[in-house]
């Protein structure tokens, strides 16, 4: 028989939050309904596992979407926010079209990313940094700038094979597929005003 430990353990052996502050379940579901438009229908999950089985990045996930939803139901919000699952989502939407309950899984992953980022959980630095670098260029210029994004990202996180990456970059450049100067839209000021106002309207998460 396994001796009972003083701290309650969940399935992966991490300490659960203290039982004195359990977030009420209804509010969690409302909360996910709020961060994802449309119909997340997360409460309808029948735990079939089609999502995890369809996921191309499944080997990297600490929790499959199915387990994430079970954790949300169980009120283990801390565990959910620390999970790397949303950050490894490649947005292939296989889980979403295969889900028998039509849960908007990919949209919920975006919602979870937003939530984790805004609450300061940046456990997976690479994915978060790629997003922030990308966002920085959009907010400054209105358009993405591949060379800038890639070089900034690779300065922070050097690529696994530097020579290959440089080779590919040079290949792209000589084929005329890489711009050296960022494109800038005329209405940058207008876009920044819109985004500024939109950030004020964001529900505090």
């Amino acid at each position, binding site marked *: 028989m396994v001796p009972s430990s003083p701290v309650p353990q969940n399935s992966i052996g991490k300490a659960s939050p203290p039982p004195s502050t359990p977030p009420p379940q209804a509010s969690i579901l409302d909360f996910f309904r709020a961060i994802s438009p449309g119909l997340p229908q997360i409460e309808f999950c029948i735990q079939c596992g089609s999502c995890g089985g369809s996921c191309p990045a499944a080997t990297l996930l600490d929790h499959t979407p199915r387990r994430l939803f079970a954790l949300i139901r169980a009120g283990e919000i801390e565990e959910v926010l620390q999970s790397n699952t*949303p950050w490894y989502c490649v*947005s292939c939407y296989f889980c979403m079209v295969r889900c028998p309950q039509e849960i908007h899984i990919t949209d919920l992953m975006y919602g979870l990313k937003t939530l984790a980022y805004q609450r300061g959980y940046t456990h997976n630095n690479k994915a978060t940094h790629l997003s922030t670098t990308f966002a920085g260029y959009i907010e400054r210029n209105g*358009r993405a700038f591949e060379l800038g994004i890639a070089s900034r990202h690779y300065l922070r996180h050097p690529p696994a094979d530097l020579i290959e990456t440089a080779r590919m970059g040079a290949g792209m450049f000589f084929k005329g597929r890489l*711009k050296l100067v960022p494109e800038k839209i005329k209405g940058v000021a207008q876009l920044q005003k819109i985004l500024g*106002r939109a950030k004020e309207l964001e529900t505090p998460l």
Partner: protein
Amino acid sequence: MKYLFYPGCSLHSTSSAYLDSLYAIQEKLGFEFAEVEDWNCCGANEYVALHRIPAYALIARNLALAEQQQNGAQTLVAACSACYLNLAKTAKYMGTDKELNARVNDALAAGGMHYTPGSVEVRHILDLMCNKLGACKVKKLVERPLTGLRVAPYYGCMVLRPDPDKRWRDPESPTALEDLILATGAELVEFPLRTHCCSGHMPQINTETSMELIRRLVEGAVKSGADLLITTCPLCQLNIDGYQHEMNKYFKTNYAMPILFFTQLIGLAFGLSPESLGVGKEITSAAPALARIGVKVETEPAAHKRPPKEQGLPMPRMPEIYGEDL
């Protein structure tokens, strides 16, 4: 037929061949694309990961611009899969979620803009070509049938899934690109991985996974006997084409599977020159595959390459230890 066109950042840089070929074939197909003026980036999958309302506002600015600009054209056409899905999803969610619509329009008002849900119809170029025009119409316009070229279709993800406006019959076994390949006279190769993931932004995040996903597709295409792949998405093209050399090095393989945009293939069948379609801009060259059907692609003069020396330095002769005498 007039259409508003949203090119997206990729078509202006890494996938300029897609834009070239689309503009080259538009007249023959009877399309007239007018670029949305001063469009901004749709945010891809990155901006929506950090913010919610700002991400929708970013996309809705393009929809609002399209609504302002529409003169006779009601349809906004996107070529990039991610751009298409972002625009289509935002247009749909703004129509179904009143609170989201109010907030996004509040944000747009800060820049003096407004978007009425439903005023612009968002479609992908593949959807337009197959479901509105029809592959038979394309077939009638073919001047140089690509007989003998073995082509495998590759859809990627976001054109088919999640399909917010229900444009396709089945998101997992589509037939649109297949119909177009047959229309061009090329031989259709069955490629079971045609709707699988190209690894998206994974090459920047996790090398192991991205290389494995790219390997599956390239190896699958080679084993199915295809000469080349055609795709609908700039990121799929970039991942399979640009990262193929790195993938080969990673797995110690030696595959060479060129991937073109489907518009380039149609352009070739229309008898247009490969240069005008941007063929030759791909890193894994399609020239050997196209040479099979007699299409010559001018390879760039290798001006930046050092010319080979006429005579090498004299090397010492090594004794043949493992010669036949031993």
